[in-house]
């Protein structure tokens, strides 16, 4: 495992032009994230956190400033090069899971491998997808379609998809936004386990209690970093899960 910072933003600005209006969404953000960190990026809507996340996720390029990902300046790369960076170094988890419908969990997880540079055989694809699915607790559900899985299970498939190419950083955009509180805690549990294994996680959330599972919180307002602090009273998902009463029976009653 390499050490040092994996994400380094230097005075990043992002300006959108929508018609005549100029929106200055990110106004000079400098941020360093070390390998193995678990960062929650917080802020109200319009604070620029999503824009910043898009830049960190190489989906968008900064208008000015530099972005160094894994010791390489990615702010100068073109569309296809950014796509390759996303494929090799980043894993995405979305609020609404973004799984392909009518497609098995296995095939969803295989997706990033199909766009990778390594040519894998059908058997290799399958083996890799199945082992990652097993690591997020979905062994035995490889053939299920998203419609046959619960929200939490769908998000686990999405996490498996994010992990399948051994990324440097996992980026999660409101990963618990569409989940109930118990499933949210379960997903945070998975993130904490992954983080224990040394995987860097950057998560956008607006929920204080979800951010409390991270090690570090970065709060944004008006396109700038308002606050950046270590989480002192960090929640442990396993402990919290124990506190929650068996919620299944509550829902059914």
């Amino acid at each position, binding site marked *: 495992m390499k050490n040092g910072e994996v994400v380094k933003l230097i005075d990043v600005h992002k300006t959108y032009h929508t018609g005549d209006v100029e929106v200055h969404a990110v106004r000079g953000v400098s941020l360093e994230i070390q390998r193995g960190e678990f960062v929650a990026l917080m802020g109200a809507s319009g604070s620029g956190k999503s824009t910043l996340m898009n830049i960190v996720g190489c989906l968008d390029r900064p208008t000015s400033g530099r972005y160094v990902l894994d010791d390489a300046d990615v702010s100068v790369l073109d569309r296809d090069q950014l*796509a390759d960076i996303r494929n090799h170094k980043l894993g995405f988890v*979305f609020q609404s899971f*973004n799984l392909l419908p*009518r497609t098995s969990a296995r095939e969803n997880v295989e*997706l990033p491998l*199909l*766009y*990778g540079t390594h040519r894998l055989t059908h058997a290799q694809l399958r083996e890799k997808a199945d082992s990652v699915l097993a690591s997020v607790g979905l062994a035995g559900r490889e053939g299920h379609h998203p419609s046959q899985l619960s929200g939490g299970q769908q998000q686990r498939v999405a996490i498996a998809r994010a992990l399948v190419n051994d990324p440097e950083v996992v980026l999660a955009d409101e990963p618990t936004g569409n989940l109930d509180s118990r499933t949210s805690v379960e997903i945070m549990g998975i993130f904490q386990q992954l983080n224990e294994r040394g995987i860097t996680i950057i998560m956008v959330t607006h929920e204080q209690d979800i951010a409390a599972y991270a090690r570090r919180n970065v709060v944004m307002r008006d396109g700038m970093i308002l606050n950046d602090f270590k989480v002192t009273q960090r929640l442990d998902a396993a402990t919290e899960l124990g506190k929650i009463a068996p919620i299944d029976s509550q829902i059914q009653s």
Partner: protein
Amino acid sequence: MRVGSTLNIALRALRRNKMRSVLTALGIIIGVAAVIAMVGIGNGAKAQVEAQIASLGQNVILIFSGSTTSSGIRTGWGGAGTLKIEDAEAIRREVPSVAAVSEEVVSTTQVAAGNQNWFTRIYGESADYLDIRQWPLVDGAPFTAQDVRSANKVCVIGRTTASQIYGNDDPVGQILRIKNVPFTITGVLTQKGLSTQGVDQDDIVIMPYTSAMKRVVGGTTLRNINVQIGDGRQIQAAQQQIIALLRQRHNIRPGRDDDFTVRNQQEIADAATATTAVMTVLLGSIAGVSLVVGGIGIMNIMLVSVTERTREIGTRMAVGAHGSDILTQFLIEAVTLSSVGGVIGIIFGIGASKILSSYAHWPTLISLSSIIVAFMFSAAVGIFFGFYPARKAAALDPIEALRYE
């Protein structure tokens, strides 16, 4: 390159929407099947006409007697009686490439045998006629050159005439009365079917032209002369020689019109096949329109598909798909739909023509070239109509696409 995995991705996407894929391909299936069947019908008709023309004989030149004007009334071809037996002899003697000649006189009359009678056509011909027409006998023997020289009262009859007069009996050796002259039937001709003009070619009695002129038709002139050329490449030269020879024999001065007309088989064939060629093109074009409509169907579905799958496209881009991967994926989807549709359409088209042949008795001819052209065209339709939606998909912004509701 990652065409292999893109192909895999595209096929997975098609499998996910089986019903829609099948319905989209259906447009192409119908289009291609229509093209194959229609062109098959057109080609079949053309082949039939060509076969009928060929049944006139190989490398045949027909010389018709000219028209004449009597008291201001023109008689039309064959009416003038300008062709003499000696003209035919001269052609036989003086045109080197000639292989066979048959002097022809034609009449229609009532024929009778026993208590049966029938109105039919009488052809007077030389002994070479059946060879020129490539018209074998099913039974008996043809009349001979000796019969022609002696104007013997013998004849061969067609299948229709035979069945009308003799029913199931064997006509060979029987006596047929033609204008009260008894003719001995020496043979029965094989069935030739309808001519291009719809005339029953089997409703016929063929006898030596000498006998016909003397006992049935009367007169001393020929309606026409059938000439067969041995070598097909000589046909134009032979035609010119015949014209020159007849002009000389008929004392026609330079600048004056011929009193006869010469047609070769190719000219007759060209005229007859031109109609069916037009029909083939027409049918093919109409069917082609349905193929284009099928292509528009593909474009429509692909556009809907791109819109509906915007989030999917965003997800693919987020996990590393290049714009070109998305473009290729959608193009492959379109081309797969159209070419699979094309293959099924070819099978259906061949099936439809077989059904038409067997139930409607329309001759159909499926050529390999029409299959290849239909398949290439359907694949091209896929590329052409798939490109715009595919490019639209590839140009999507991943951020917008991911958020698309």
